[in-house]
């Protein structure tokens, strides 16, 4: 079955609201990495952390490895935040990642 489950699959917010994206994984992970996928398809790495909480700008990633879950919090969402957010789980130390199906965020004025 799907190793990485993301929820919600889609989210619609008004500008200024906060977004919370969840990621659950079915096996032990060494790291969780969050990506933003541009409309053209390329991936922008947002945050990567093995456990605990990490911040950058308006983004906060929290990973609780023992509970096999993680989250990405986007505060004060902006229209330009709209797009697809992917959670990827890493097992071991290679480049192998298992991706979730993504969460489509739409931020309206």
């Amino acid at each position, binding site marked *: 079955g799907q190793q990485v489950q993301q929820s919600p699959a889609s989210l619609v917010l008004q500008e200024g609201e906060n977004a919370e994206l969840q990621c659950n994984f079915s096996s032990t992970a060494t790291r969780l990495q969050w990506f933003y996928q541009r409309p053209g398809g390329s*991936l922008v790495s947002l945050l990567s952390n093995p456990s605990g909480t990490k911040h950058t700008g308006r983004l906060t990633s929290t990973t609780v490895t023992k509970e096999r879950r993680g989250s990405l919090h986007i505060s004060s969402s902006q229209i330009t935040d709209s797009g697809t957010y992917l959670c990827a789980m890493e097992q071991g130390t*290679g*480049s192998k990642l298992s991706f979730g199906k993504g969460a489509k965020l739409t931020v309206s004025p």
Partner: protein
Amino acid sequence: GALVYQYPRRTICKSGTSMRMECQAVGFQATSVAWYRQSPQKTFELIALSTVNSAIKYEQNFTQEKFPISHPNLSFSSMTVLNAYLEDRGLYLCGARGGNTEVFFGKGTRLTVV
């Protein structure tokens, strides 16, 4: 900083022909490189993982005969899609890392098969 250059960004090939894509790691030594495909309306699937000094490991549904990969040194990897057909279309990504860092991705190669 660490970067991965992937090229070409997009390519169109005729059904039954082959195309090759390449990735170059800059600013770090790519000890492992993974190749992924995102087919239309799907998430990323791992094709294979290549680690220097180890055999390339292909995932189920992907074979070396169809997707031969080369990883000759710590800065370069290439993958060829042989005999491409409609079901091979999609976005192909390479992800590389060195040591215990995060995985760095190229911008992808979008393959269209006509």
